[in-house]
């Protein structure tokens, strides 16, 4: 079984074969390293390829299988990690100069869980600096290219992870999604991307952008692989106070469960102005496919969703302005000397951060300032409450909601790089979910007029991953 558009077998197939002794983890890793060698110069999905440690980890997996042990549900599966996930002793850059030379002394919880499950980390992927962006053009180390068309952006901020899966560099990748940073690049690269419920996956070891919105999630070539990876990384972590303490259901079983009787609502506010007609047509086709499979499809309304973008660009920068304060040159990363401590801090931050990060730090600082707090940050929190209430009302009538993931297919380099507002608009469909703390995912569903992939977004209420994956499984079958 091969993932559509990808030269590699699925993660599920690799793991099953490795566990059965029918496949060598080492050979699997070597094959993926070969694919990286062949195309990475064009794509630039990675900040760092971990060839040696990946080979060593694969050998260890093979040895365990030979010794009769079971290395776990992701045995021998190569995985790419967004470079804002902490890896012990391995540079973690967030694609920023400010973290130059920093090696975390610890692993993120998801990294530990992957190792326990037998997965093999093959590299750290490129991103918009500190996950701020929608095209991966904001990386300090140069942009990533879309494997479907190298003249186009892969989306962002997890553009490297999306591209790695789309290019067949790894069957799985992890990204982080604060306002759409998993779903938007997944849509633009034609892969599956999942933003889980806030608190379902531990954030411990994810370098924070906006703490109340950030969530780690899977990229995969298939819905089944995404579900498999989510099963491994989900679950309570005492190191994250916002982690949900509840048992994790089987996501892999949900994928094949069908949508008979599932109530699906198309979000009317996300189907109008600003959405390209060819993208809208694919969402309508997806709704028809779900109806044909037994779902009850109707029209849903989430009126406050239209205010999501404005609220997000106050809340996320506000939190970011605080989260990114620690990069001050005192303890780690880049230091540019100055005559006094504060001059050193200023010089380090001026040299270490890129333009978009500085823009958001300034926006956030302003939004929280005395005299402006109520008008900006305070009001944004009220909008957030409204969005949560509107979603709650919609989920009284529907089990899942449907919308485009992005307003358009992948755009060309430079097309929006000089116009921050146009760039911000590419997250208009994904942002409301983050504000509500709910799950959503993007599933490839055909192509647009330009032949580039279109992603359909499935949204679900808090801890609604199971119905979400049921719908995704049906769409994946229908798209074949």
């Amino acid at each position, binding site marked *: 079984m091969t993932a559509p558009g990808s030269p590699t077998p699925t993660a599920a197939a690799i793991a099953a074969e490795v566990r059965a002794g029918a496949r060598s983890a080492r050979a699997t890793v070597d094959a993926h390293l070969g694919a990286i060698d062949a195309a990475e110069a064009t794509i630039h999905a990675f900040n760092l390829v971990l060839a040696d440690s990946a080979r060593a980890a694969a050998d260890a997996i093979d040895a365990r299988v030979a010794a009769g042990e079971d290395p776990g549900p992701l045995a021998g599966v190569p995985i790419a990690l967004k470079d804002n996930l902490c890896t012990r002793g391995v540079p973690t850059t967030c694609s920023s100069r400010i973290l130059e030379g920093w090696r975390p002394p610890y692993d993120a919880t998801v990294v530990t869980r992957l190792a326990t499950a037998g997965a093999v980390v093959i590299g750290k992927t490129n991103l918009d600096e500190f996950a701020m962006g929608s095209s991966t053009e904001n990386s300090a180390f140069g942009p990533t290219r879309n494997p479907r068309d190298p003249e186009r952006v892969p989306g962002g901020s997890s553009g490297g992870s999306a591209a790695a899966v789309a290019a067949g560099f790894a069957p799985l990748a992890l990204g982080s999604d604060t306002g759409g940073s998993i779903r938007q690049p997944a849509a633009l690269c034609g892969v599956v991307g999942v933003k889980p419920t806030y608190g379902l996956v531990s954030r411990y*070891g994810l370098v924070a952008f906006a703490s109340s919105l950030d969530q780690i999630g899977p990229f995969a070539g298939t819905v089944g692989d995404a579900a498999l990876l989510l099963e491994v990384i989900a679950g309570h972590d005492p190191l994250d106070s916002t982690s949900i303490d509840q048992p994790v259901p089987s996501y892999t079983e949900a994928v094949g469960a069908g949508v008979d009787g599932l109530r699906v609502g198309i979000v009317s506010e996300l189907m109008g102005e600003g959405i390209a007609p060819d993208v809208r047509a694919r969402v309508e086709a997806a709704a028809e496919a779900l109806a044909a499979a037994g779902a009850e499809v109707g029209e849903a309304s989430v009126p406050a969703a239209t205010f999501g973008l404005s609220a997000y660009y106050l809340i996320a920068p506000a939190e970011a302005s605080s989260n990114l304060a*620690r990069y001050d040159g005192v303890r780690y990363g880049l230091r540019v000397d100055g005559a006094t401590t504060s001059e050193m801090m200023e010089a380090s931050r001026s040299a270490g951060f890129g333009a978009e990060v500085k823009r958001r730090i300034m926006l956030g600082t302003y939004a929280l300032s005395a005299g402006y707090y109520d008008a900006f940050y305070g009001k944004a929190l009220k909008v957030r409450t409204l969005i949560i209430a509107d979603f709650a009302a919609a989920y009284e009538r529907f089990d899942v909601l449907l919308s485009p993931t992005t307003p358009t297919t992948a755009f060309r380099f430079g097309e929006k790089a000089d116009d921050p507002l146009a760039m911000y608009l590419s997250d208009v469909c994904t942002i409301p979910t983050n504000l509500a703390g709910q799950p959503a995912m993007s599933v490839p569903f055909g192509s647009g007029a330009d032949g580039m992939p279109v992603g359909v977004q499935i949204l679900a209420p808090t801890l609604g991953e199971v119905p979400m994956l049921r719908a995704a499984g049906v769409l994946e079958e229908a798209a074949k």
Partner: protein
Amino acid sequence: MSAIHGIDGLDDWELVVGLEVHCELATATKLFCGCPNQFGDDPNTNVCPVCLGLPGSLPVLNHQAVELAMRIGRALNCTVHPSVFARKNYFYPDMPKDYQVSQYDQPINADGWLDLPDGSRIGITRAHLEEDTGKNTHAGGSGRIHGADYSLIDYNRAGVPLVEIVSEPDVRSPEQARTYVAELRTILLAIGASDAKMEEGSMRVDANVSVRPHGQAAFGTRCEIKNLNSLRSLVRAIEYEARRQVDLLGTGERIHQETRHWDEEAGRTRAGRSKEEAEDYRYFQEPDLVPVAPGADWLARVEAALPVLPAARRETLAGAAGLAATHPGVVMAVDRGLDDLARGAIAAGADPVRVLTHVEHNLAVEGAETLGAAALAELVGMETGGALTATQAKTVLADMVATGRGPAEIAAERGFEAMDTGALEAIVDEAIAANASEWADYVAASAAGDDKRLKKLTGFFTGKIMQASKGQADGRAVNELLTRKRDGAA
């Protein structure tokens, strides 16, 4: 009242003080991580990714800290509220995240009070949880932050749990400020919330000081005084600051709201950063933590476990001793946790004043709490019965604490017995004869009313007599004999 109480010369002015007391909680570990909360270890040994604020790390709230904060709140008659943490944002190198996690608009404790031994009541605005910062050492050059060659930072203290106790502006004199802080310290020790050592910085006091003309309802402009490292500094700084403000207002100048630092050596406050240029802390709710909402059963358990507080213990002991609750021996007995011992000895028939004198002056030693009430009562009985002098009793008491043996046994072994008057008089006569010119001086000084010289010479003769009696002479008896001999000589 026509003057600031306790400060001479500030007629017509009223002093208004509010106090902010930071105390480090006596938890095993830090507020948001598992690192030991321990003073005095090698720099940067009690640190981890969380308290160093490394990228990707997240805080997890220490429940022991919450419990101690609740204990403080209830001991100060506060209401315990559901509370949230906030981030206080400012750049400073001893703060690893460049924000401090604190409580802002929803503190865990609010609206309480503290009754002082003199009967006055000081309102408690709030007592909230927050994390401590690291510690900077500026080296080379001037040794201050500006002009030092380099700075070293120790993050062992970063993330240590603090409770900040903010009083209402109810304090009206330097002495009342001292009493408030002393009483607060006694309570913190009694409930096991903090070791409250001002000299080690586990208890830190800032004073908001203003003055206003008597009868004026509005507060004057206040200055916040920092760097108060002892109760003595607190009193001196408030006195100085009150005078400074009254002097300025007297010449028609205005007080600028500012932070001022107490300079102990120079005995004055100096301007720090002014509030006009003060930073905007951009407080917002800490998204990495969830609200703290202690349930009714948890609060009930905390209240049930609260010990009897010092004020009540002073009342009990004062009642048993027939003394005022403000008697220094009573206050000290409670401070030292020796009030049960004192009450036991008094109940066993010992003279209350003698018992409390020993507690106040002779039991500030390690192991004093191991002393038995019956043994202390026996010692005081020997003393009041004339079998031991006060000096001998003190020596015996020290041995009792050190060895755990009884007073009679120790006294016998040391050969302590009250010297009979005849033998003592002989020693006194000998001392006078052997030091004739000093004796003549003594008599002359006494006649001239030269107290200073007389005191010196009394000491001289007492020393000689004590030496000759091998310490067995009773000081009071010696003094009486000397007076009698002088009267005879005159």
